[in-house]
């Protein structure tokens, strides 16, 4: 899709949409300063403060109190991964979009990726893709519940799980999750 020899990095935008209610949203954002790179450095603390002040400008004190976590930050490229509750996604995203300047330098936030997280009791991270049907998801949950009950009731977990024929793939999958 990208033409060869392109100097700029691909702005390939990815959006994963979840129809289930999910707990957290992850945003991959980059801070762009245009042609002239500023003389000052933007540390992780500065970056976080920038986000909070953007939220405060647009949504007030209540918006500034929105819990946003900077999970990853690269000082050279100014690209970060943010995590926010799904209820606060619109607030955060709009605040980042409308930010115009930082320390009298014109800048812009570019949201490169936006991912929803579906969290379940095992605390794992996976995406519900659009092609998962409702019946498929129900079956998945039933299986999870079944094996969870099996796990609780008897001590020899691994042997029981592996010995079942025809469900080996699912078992391995469950084992991976538990690890």
């Amino acid at each position, binding site marked *: *899709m990208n033409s060869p020899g392109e100097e700029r990095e691909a*702005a*390939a935008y990815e959006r994963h949409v979840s129809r289930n209610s999910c707990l957290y949203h992850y945003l991959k954002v980059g801070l762009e300063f245009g042609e002239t790179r500023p003389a000052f450095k933007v540390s992780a603390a500065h970056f976080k403060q920038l986000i909070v002040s953007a939220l405060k400008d647009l949504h007030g004190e209540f918006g500034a109190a929105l819990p946003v976590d900077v999970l990853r930050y690269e000082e050279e490229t100014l690209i970060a991964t943010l995590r926010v509750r799904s209820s606060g996604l619109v607030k955060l995203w709009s605040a980042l979009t409308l930010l115009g300047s930082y320390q009298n330098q014109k800048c812009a936030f570019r949201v490169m990726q936006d991912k929803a997280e579906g969290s379940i009791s095992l605390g794992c991270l996976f995406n519900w893709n659009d092609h998962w049907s409702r019946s498929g998801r129900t079956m998945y949950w039933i299986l999870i519940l079944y094996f969870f009950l099996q796990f609780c009731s008897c001590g020899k977990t691994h042997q029981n799980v592996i010995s079942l024929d025809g469900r080996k793939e699912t078992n391995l999958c469950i084992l991976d999750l538990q690890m």
Partner: protein
Amino acid sequence: MAVFVDLNIVNTTDRKRLQSLIETAAHLGYSTVALNHVVELQGKRQEIAKPTSVSELFPSPPIVQGRSKPIKIVTRLTVIVSDASHCNDLRSTSPHTRSYDIVAVLPKTEKLFHVACMTLDVDLICINVVEKQPYHFRRPSVNGNIIMSSAAERSLELRGPYDIANLGLLFGLSEGDAKAAVSTNCRAALLHGETRKTALGVIYTVRKAPAVEEKDEERPLSKRAKTKSD
């Protein structure tokens, strides 16, 4: 993947700035952008200038990120009207407005707003939401199709299409409406502009019933029914 359109890139004489603006728009994923020429008619009739030539700007337009096609650049004219006499240019097919792909109007009074909605032959009606309006506008009764555009003068002022769609949620639009504001509705405006340029009259042909035709063959030439072209 949806086609994203930004219908307002302020036209400047600075070619380099314009080029970097359009390159950024292509990089962000916009398939079509419109160069906006703003004209304010005050008192005496002003001449509406011809649009800047697009082919001069870019011998080979930049490729849109995510698609293999180059970005499409169209021209747009925005007329700021504060008096009813200014609308004459926009009412009929005026020679000035025909060279632009999209024609937009920015009414300054409520009456003009109504006129623009009902009678004027324009593609877009602009509302300046930054200033407090002297009138309270109500959405027209016909499906209020809303579009959002950047009015960007510098490449850093541009925002990605999904960012704009998210802002639409802040404005009270539904998620579908917000995304349509950057894609579908813009495309509809572009097509409306195209029809305004091309469709001046319609010629339709009616298929004659075969029985009547056979009868005509028998009669001598002078007594045959006259066709529409005569």
